[in-house]
């Protein structure tokens, strides 16, 4: 074997692989962009969860002879951490029972008794006894037990007689214990196995069809695309369900046998009916959701290999929320039911444990089916014969891109020589692939500039926005041979568009911010952090400076990138509504804060809609500027903190006022759009339906 031959083959293989832009994108974007964002979100959620749990006092009932009980009460009442009391204690006349603990009326019950007069010798001689009842299947009860143990063990010198001889007693019935054991293991297994069951069939029926050259045959049949893709999703979902059911049965038996071995025959009884109900209630919606998502992603791929490359990160991305839900001991209520992956995992846990509510079941089912239907609609759009059978994107190669970047758009491409009738590429819209790549690079830049921002926040932020984001847009425009003003859609807006943008910018934060704060409140410490990063601009010059840094700068630089090439690129593949939604989601993701994701994504959607409706980036910049300037003004006035302490009436009034202003702004933008259309269509819009 000659080294030269090995190197020759390796060089050729590397060249081929690196020329496959999608593989490259997945190789680079996911580890460097998506995984850090997901990890960041996970850490934020878990930290908030742990922080919130730490602050909740454990409800403990103390019973027994009055003097001893009161002494214990005083001892436990003195326990606290970070200013939060560890316990909410009660001394009821009737002692709390095991039933009270099981029903969750108290987290733990302590029964104290006097030391027996004749007791002597031993470590606990002369100590009062404390019998602690807790429920092993409830997180709050387990926390209460831990705190009681710590409290009773604390403060003793080595060798001292303990004040209390503590006995701990779990009160969960055997069936509940079995359900608890299953509920810790099975939900994640069900969700993961349903996903795994959908993985290969989804690839086989999408990319596999293309690779087997049966795509044209399928597309030539007289069947609507929606029926075709729904049929494919139903097939994949059926296989995913089968996988889920088989794994559920297998894991249940394994857990049972394992528990028998561990308990030497006295295993907890397992709630088979609950496991069956979980299979019925969770597996079908989960299978539909994951099948739709995977078929949609598979429809993007040109080959089996590419589909695997694309779907593997998606698989892990889908698994992340399920894992988070399984580990985090979250309650299934509010927004949690509507988060894909989280809802189904928590529902499976609650159904198996035997305490799922009808509302939660309906919410999870409806949201999973809703998301699945959205993914199916996307799959219908992506399984497009134009894209699947058309020539591959003849984008600029690396060399041509660099030539454009360094020397400008002087050199003509081969296509232009062959086809002199081609449209001018200087005004061609960016592609969807370019849009996603630019987003990836922007996130990388965000991480790259982070050390500078930590070192010096103000210059770091300014440098990142003007050099990083705006520079990226400029480099992209020059490198791809496009006019910068064309990439940005930098056009003079009408007066109606400007006024509409100001009204939307001045009211969107009010409506969106207050509603989100109401529905999905961020932890207090997160709100405080957000307040800290919005400088109030104390003093005359300070205010101007804050406006320049936090309102003007992002309005120019972030808008240039997001409402420029990213929005315009996505618009070539998606409808106006789809492009605005996708850009809003990317805008939310880019801000890297799970608690601000929804409001920022909604604002991003609003700015995108304005840019598309007015066919100019300027009104979007104005709206962004107005929004941020309003936040700075509020911080300066010191009234931003009032939001969390408003009554429902005050809040609704403010939301209503904001909604009226927002509607007026939207009406003006719509008017500007109509006026623009009357003047005639503009070139190089995407081909999808209009918003």
């Amino acid at each position, binding site marked *: 074997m000659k080294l030269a031959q090995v190197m020759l083959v390796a060089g050729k293989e590397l060249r081929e692989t690196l020329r496959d832009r999608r593989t490259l994108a997945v190789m680079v974007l996911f580890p460097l962009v998506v995984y850090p964002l997901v990890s960041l979100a996970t850490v934020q959620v878990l930290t908030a969860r742990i922080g919130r749990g730490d602050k909740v006092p454990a409800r403990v009932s103390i019973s027994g002879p009055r003097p001893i009980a009161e002494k214990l009460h005083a001892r436990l009442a003195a326990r606290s951490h970070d200013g939060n009391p560890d316990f909410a204690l009660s001394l009821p006349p009737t002692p709390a029972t095991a039933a009270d603990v099981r029903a969750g009326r108290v987290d733990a019950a302590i029964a104290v008794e006097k030391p027996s007069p004749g007791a002597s010798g031993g470590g606990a001689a002369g100590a009062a006894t404390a019998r602690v009842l807790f429920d092993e299947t409830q997180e709050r009860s387990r926390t209460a037990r831990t705190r009681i143990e710590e409290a009773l063990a604390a403060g003793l010198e080595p060798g001292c007689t303990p004040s209390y001889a503590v006995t701990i007693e779990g009160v969960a019935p055997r069936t509940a214990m079995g359900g608890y054991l299953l509920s810790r293991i099975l939900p994640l297994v069900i969700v993961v196995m349903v996903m795994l069951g959908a993985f290969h069939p989804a690839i086989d029926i999408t990319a596999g069809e293309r690779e*087997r*050259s*049966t*795509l*044209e*045959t*399928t*597309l*030539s*049949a*007289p*069947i*609507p695309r929606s029926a075709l893709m729904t049929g494919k999703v139903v097939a994949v979902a059926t296989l995913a369900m089968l996988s889920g059911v088989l794994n559920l049965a297998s894991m249940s038996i394994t857990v049972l046998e394992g528990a028998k071995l561990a308990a030497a025959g006295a295993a907890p009884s397992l709630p088979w009916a609950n496991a069956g109900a979980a299979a019925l209630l969770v597996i079908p919606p989960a299978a539909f959701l994951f099948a739709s998502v995977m078929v949609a992603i598979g429809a993007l791929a040109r080959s089996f290999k590419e589909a695997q490359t694309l779907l593997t990160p998606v698989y892990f991305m889908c698994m992340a929320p399920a894992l988070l839900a399984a580990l985090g001991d979250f309650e299934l209520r509010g927004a949690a039911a509507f988060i894909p992956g989280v809802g189904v995992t928590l529902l499976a846990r609650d159904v198996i444990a035997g305490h799922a509510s009808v509302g939660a079941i309906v919410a999870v089912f409806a949201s999973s089916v809703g998301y699945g239907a959205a993914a199916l609609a996307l799959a219908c759009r992506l399984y497009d*014969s*134009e894209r699947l*059978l*058309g*020539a591959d*994107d*003849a984008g600029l190669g690396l060399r041509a891109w660099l030539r454009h970047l360094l020397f400008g758009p002087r050199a003509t*491409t081969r*296509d*232009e020589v*062959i*086809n002199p*009738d*081609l449209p001018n*590429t200087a005004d061609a819209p960016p592609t969807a692939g370019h849009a996603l790549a630019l987003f990836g690079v922007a996130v990388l830049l965000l991480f790259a500039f982070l050390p500078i921002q930590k070192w010096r926040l103000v210059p770091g932020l300014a440098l990142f926005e003007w050099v990083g984001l705006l520079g990226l847009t400029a480099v992209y425009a020059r490198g791809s041979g496009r006019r910068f003003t064309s990439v940005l859609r930098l056009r003079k807006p009408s007066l109606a568009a400007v006024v509409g943008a100001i009204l939307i910018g001045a009211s969107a934060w009010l409506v969106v911010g207050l509603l989100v704060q109401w529905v999905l409140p961020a932890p207090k410490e997160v709100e405080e952090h957000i307040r800290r990063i919005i400088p109030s601009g104390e003093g005359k010059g300070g205010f101007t400076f804050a406006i320049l840094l936090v309102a003007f700068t992002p309005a120019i630089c972030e808008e240039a990138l997001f409402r420029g090439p990213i929005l315009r690129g996505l618009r070539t593949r998606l409808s106006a509504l789809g492009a605005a939604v996708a850009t809003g989601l990317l805008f939310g993701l880019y801000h890297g804060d799970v608690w601000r994701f929804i409001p920022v994504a909604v604002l991003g959607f609003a700015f995108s809609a304005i840019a598309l409706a007015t066919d100019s980036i300027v009104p979007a910049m104005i709206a962004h500027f107005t929004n941020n300037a309003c936040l700075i003004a509020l911080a300066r006035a010191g009234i931003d903190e009032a939001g969390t302490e408003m009554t429902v009436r005050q809040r609704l009034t403010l939301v209503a006022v904001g909604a009226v202003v927002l509607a007026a702004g939207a009406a003006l933008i719509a008017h500007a759009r109509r006026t623009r259309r009357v003047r005639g269509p503009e070139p190089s819009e995407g081909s999808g339906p209009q918003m």
Partner: protein
Amino acid sequence: MTSPAPAVAVDSLSKSFGATAAVAELSFAIAPGEIYGLLGPNGAGKTTTLRILAGILLPTRGRVEVVGLDVAREPLAVRQHLGFLTNTTGLYPRLSGRELLRYFARLHGLDRDAATARIAALAGALELGGFFDRRCEALSTGERQRLSIARAVLHDPAVLVLDEPTAGLDVLASRFLRDFVRAERDRGKAVAFSTHYLAEAELLCDRIGLLHRGRLLAEGTPAALRAAAGDAPSLEEAFLRLVGAGTGPRPDGSALSPRPPGSDGPR
């Protein structure tokens, strides 16, 4: 006397894929009972044109009608009147021939009895009996092509679109296919047929459209095309004269094959 309405009417058809123009300003018509050959080298735009006829791709500009239906507006209705044979046979490998035909019969709206009768008739006419219950992945190229034809004509369409149907076939299979196409023509079907085998086009087609770089260079009967090229001795020579490339190598390096499989001598 008025001529019958064309089964296929293509008017100023253009199709671009991003920056690449595949077809430009193409116009032709096919009458019922006529075989129209699209002839050209690889990359001339034949497959793109046929895919647009089949309603799989949409025109960038221009209009295409099949039995009076606009393919851009009514692609599903067009596919009910059209049988499309791809250049790769495109059979589902894990289905048997019988399962495949039943599936497509249902897609075309044939009821169970009609489908059974039609499948039996086609199995006899195309001699599918010997391999009808074998999985498609186990069939030879010729067997697959016969099964593909059965699939394409299952719903007895008025228009047949055949994209290089003899590519890769041996002499006997090619001749069988040509005979079948002629028989369909004689039954009043309009046939759009693409090939880069010049002699095959000359043998089979009533009229030929010469495509080069997405544009229609010339159109007419094989004899008329030779005459238009200054009484060229063969269709190949006529094509070369019409593209102005003489007898030397063509600038794009593409080639037209002079002899079809199973025509007049070994390939």
